[in-house]
């Protein structure tokens, strides 16, 4: 009897996780999917209205702004973080004195929450007292820097803060990648007379393809989930000019009692993530076999 239980122990241990996973992940996703086809507002209700919520969503100017912003934000955030992270990693990899200290400085923003980051940058970018005043104090009194309160520029303040927070992490990934590059390949190329720039461009960077790949995945993932930073830095404003989809979902589902619409926006977010993650997971799993 005891031996029999012993045999089932591994499955028994995994059982609670399995149940929770099936209910709270897959079940909940299905529930949200179903909800997005109903006209639920304050409370869930099961009057099915087909694709109406999705139609409303894509006719909602606020959602369209959020999608546009996500495009701008994702593109710039990823591009700048990658370039910055790569350059800093390459430079740091060249036998730098005090490498540890510099690395620590690049990476510490990653330890604080996006709310703290947002609060800090809200102060630094403060139109009256922040950077603008600093430059005025240096004598350039015509200088203007009020992106935080300009509808068409506010989204770029999110980019700045997000790059500050996450580029150190990209640096760490690239640095780890660079340390893994076989020194003999580099030496051989040197003997052939290749310049360091050529060695990096033609030999080392191609080897680091997987690092680029996973960095892009992680950064895209951060971008699509971005919510706290917007909430803390701009509150989505001015107006709703710096909203991202996650903020849209929160506002409509929880503050405006538009459950159906919120659920539809959440489903769109899920599918955007899937479109990026599934090919990645697929190739990862295939490589390992």
């Amino acid at each position, binding site marked *: 009897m005891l031996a029999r239980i012993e045999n089932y122990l*591994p499955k028994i*241990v995994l059982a609670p*996780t399995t149940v929770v996973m099936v209910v709270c992940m897959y079940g909940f996703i299905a529930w949200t999917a179903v909800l997005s086809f109903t006209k639920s507002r304050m409370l869930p209700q099961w009057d099915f209205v087909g694709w109406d919520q999705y139609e409303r969503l894509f006719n909602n100017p606020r959602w369209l702004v959020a999608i546009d912003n996500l495009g701008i934000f994702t593109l710039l955030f990823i591009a700048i973080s990658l370039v910055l992270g790569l350059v800093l990693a390459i430079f740091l990899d*060249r036998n730098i004195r005090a490498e540890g200290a510099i690395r620590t400085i*690049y990476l510490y923003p990653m330890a*604080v929450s*996006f709310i703290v980051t947002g609060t800090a940058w809200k102060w630094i970018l403060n139109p009256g007292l922040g950077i603008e005043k600093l430059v005025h104090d240096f004598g350039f009194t015509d200088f203007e820097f009020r992106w935080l309160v300009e509808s068409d520029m506010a989204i770029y303040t999110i980019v700045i803060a997000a790059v500050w927070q996450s580029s150190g992490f990209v640096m760490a990934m690239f640095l780890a990648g660079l340390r893994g590059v076989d020194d003999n390949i580099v030496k051989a190329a040197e003997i052939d007379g290749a310049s360091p720039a050529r060695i990096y461009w033609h030999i080392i960077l191609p080897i680091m393809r997987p690092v680029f790949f996973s960095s892009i995945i992680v950064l895209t993932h951060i971008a699509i989930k971005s919510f*706290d930073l917007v909430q803390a830095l701009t509150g989505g404003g001015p107006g709703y000019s710096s909203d991202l989809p996650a903020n849209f979902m929160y506002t409509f589902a929880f503050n405006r009692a538009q459950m159906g619409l919120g659920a539809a926006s959440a*489903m769109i977010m899920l599918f955007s993530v899937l479109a990026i993650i599934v090919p990645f997971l697929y190739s990862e799993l295939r490589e390992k076999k």
Partner: protein
Amino acid sequence: MSHTFANGFNAGRAFIYATLVFFALLYISPLYIILTTSFKDIEEIRSGNLLALPDEPTLYAWIKAWGSACTGSDCNGLAPFFWNSIRIVIPAVLISTIIGALNGYVLAQWRFRGSDMLFGALLFGCFIPFQVILLPMSILLGKMGLANTISGLVMVHVIYGIAFTTLFFRNYYVAIPSDLTKAAKLDGAGFFSIFTNVFLPMSTPIFVVTIIWQFTQIWNDFLFGVVYSGSGTQPITVALNNLVNTSVGGKEYNVDMAAAVIAALPTLLVYVVAGKYFVKGLTAGAVKG
């Protein structure tokens, strides 16, 4: 190995150092500005230079941020919310880590038919945007009577943390040859005694990585906090955001900054003390999610 090149590029070394130092200053400056601002009085903030050290350092902002600043309608400072976060973080980290360790142990050492598929299905949980589970979870919490409670938040953090903790432990234990488990089994050791006698003693590093990762994630969480907490149970990130956006009387930027440091202090401290493990978790966890 860092890479050094024998030929050329020496003129470039000054440039490399200059770039690295320039960016180090750029990354550290927000922290410097937050800290100096938090020790200034409001008069000096309005008249003085953003980068200047405080003329007459004062603890006023810190005392107010901790004990009497307004976070919405309450004016008890961040202190109560700091304790809320601690009451959320400690059980959530411990429970999710222990569950993750056991799950990882089974998935790596006691595989059965379907266990790899289960792992794949769980891994997916690292990637979903939580917006798709927000609505059903809030209804479940309501039905369980856990809406707006600390226990409810602990439960949510445990549920959605398990995917990561399991991933960490599974990847750690999978590197340990299964012959070890087989030999122990032949000696008559059971499922749990193999875990406690063989695996636990060699698990310190992965426990540290996982605990740090979970601690940082949960302490810095804003999304679950803002959606599932009530006025008395909010975690510190939510309180900080409310504090910054509450404008009773004049805006006190020094209090905002002191509050931001208070909210960031625990995770920054962890980063300073155990940076090595922090980075490990970041790269291990991040590559996958």
